[in-house]
């Protein structure tokens, strides 16, 4: 690894910036996608047929479409429909849509772990359906999906690599490696540094997720 230190001397700040951009894209798309996923999950519970149908379609579409195809559509095809979104918001929007579909899917599974008897009990206490959803069902569902959501967050963090497919003003890790490999012979060293950064980010998320899970898990 003798080639890593000259690389860091030249590209060190660029790597730090790339890592921060990767984290920023991850955080923004996860927070927005998670919130949207919760809204979709709740809306899918309402007894409104057309809404349920459309949201199920939404979840299936965004779970099954490759993120790159979605990103390319948003960046290159939407301007033909006079919808122009800047590159960075496009990346965040893409990941947010995909994240929300998976969140809705996982939360649905989490909701199914809540016993119907609890709902009966809450209703017999005179609680309104929306109150039951927000104060009985969702808290338990959220606590049961910490593990899948951790995996989703890691997958999302790795997916930010697709930002290298659009001319973002700043470079995230994968785009930086591609640039360095194009410009110089330091490709392998750059790859090693970026890989270490991805691995470290993944480990931090996994550790945080495991800690949170231990705190909030419901023992049945």
């Amino acid at each position, binding site marked *: 690894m003798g080639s890593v230190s000259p690389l860091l001397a030249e590209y060190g700040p660029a790597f730090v910036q790339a890592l921060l951009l990767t984290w920023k894209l991850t955080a923004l798309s996860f927070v927005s996608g998670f919130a949207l996923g919760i809204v979709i999950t709740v809306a899918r*519970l*309402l*007894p*409104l*047929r*057309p*809404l349920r149908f*459309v949201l199920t379609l939404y979840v*299936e*579409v965004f*779970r*099954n*479409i*490759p*993120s*790159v*195809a*979605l990103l*390319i*559509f948003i960046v*290159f*095809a939407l301007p*033909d*429909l*006079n*919808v122009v979104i800047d590159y960075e918001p496009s990346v965040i929007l893409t990941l947010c849509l995909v994240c929300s579909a998976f969140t809705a899917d996982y939360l649905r599974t989490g*909701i*199914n772990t*809540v016993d*119907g*008897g609890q*709902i*009966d009990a809450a*209703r017999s206490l005179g609680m309104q*359906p929306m109150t039951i*959803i927000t104060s009985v069902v969702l808290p338990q569902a959220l606590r049961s999906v910490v593990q899948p959501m951790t995996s989703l967050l*890691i997958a999302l963090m*790795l*997916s*930010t*690599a*697709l930002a*290298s*497919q659009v001319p973002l003003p700043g470079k995230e*890790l*994968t785009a930086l*490696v*591609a640039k360095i*490999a*194009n410009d110089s*012979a330091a*490709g*392998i060293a750059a*790859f090693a540094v*970026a*890989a270490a950064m*991805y*691995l470290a980010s*993944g*480990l931090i998320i996994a550790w945080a997720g495991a800690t949170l899970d231990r705190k909030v898990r419901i023992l049945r």
Partner: protein
Amino acid sequence: MSRALEDVLFGDLTHKAQAITRVVSVGVAAALLALIAAIVYRFQDAGQFAGRLWEFFAWETTWVFLGKGLLGTLASAAAAAVIALVLGLVLLVGRLSRLRIARWPAVAVIEFLRGVPTLLLIYVCFLVLPSVGIKLSAYWMLTLPVGLSTAAVVAEVYRAGVLAVPRGQTDAARALGLSKAQVFASIVFPQAFRYIVPALVAQLVIVVKDTTFGYVVTYGELMQNAKVLIANYRSLVPVYLVVAVLYCLVNYAISRASHRLGRPVY
């Protein structure tokens, strides 16, 4: 509890509540139709319904070309899946080994391949390997990285399956005099494999999605062929829409298959 939660929540509404629900449903349907109308208007307004942009979809050659792309996608996905299944098994055996010299490298490889984006591995095969004298064809520049990163996930899926096989079976088989390798090959792994078939098929969806990066290395898969069509006919929105629908259909079919396989066999 076999009752669906929403049925318990809204199971026995009063007549008044039912009436309100019906009215709101109609309102929602109207709003959704308005949304569709707005999108259609947007297409019309931007001139996206012009015959020039859609007419080539009536030509057989277009579909043959897209079909070739889809075949390219499936060919790459299939080979990547085979790599993943085989290498995943190798990694699993290493991971479960009691020898540290086999276990540690296996753990390191699994964690490394799982923790790095597939796209980054593709760039390594595409940009870095040629500079050290290793030249791969476009097909392998896509298939190898996808297969490698899937192999690590598959190894973990295998492991979950193996751990789900009751420990008593291993003990019983060992007591009957089978060697460790025999126990693994003929008792544990066949059962573990049946547990995890749905998870493996579901993984195939991710493989198909990852092959979308084929256009990065100009391998002729669906996305790459779509780009060629766009360059020929200057028709961005229609082509990308059709391709997105194709991807969704393929992956949805795989997901459904995975669900069917997941149902218990009696």
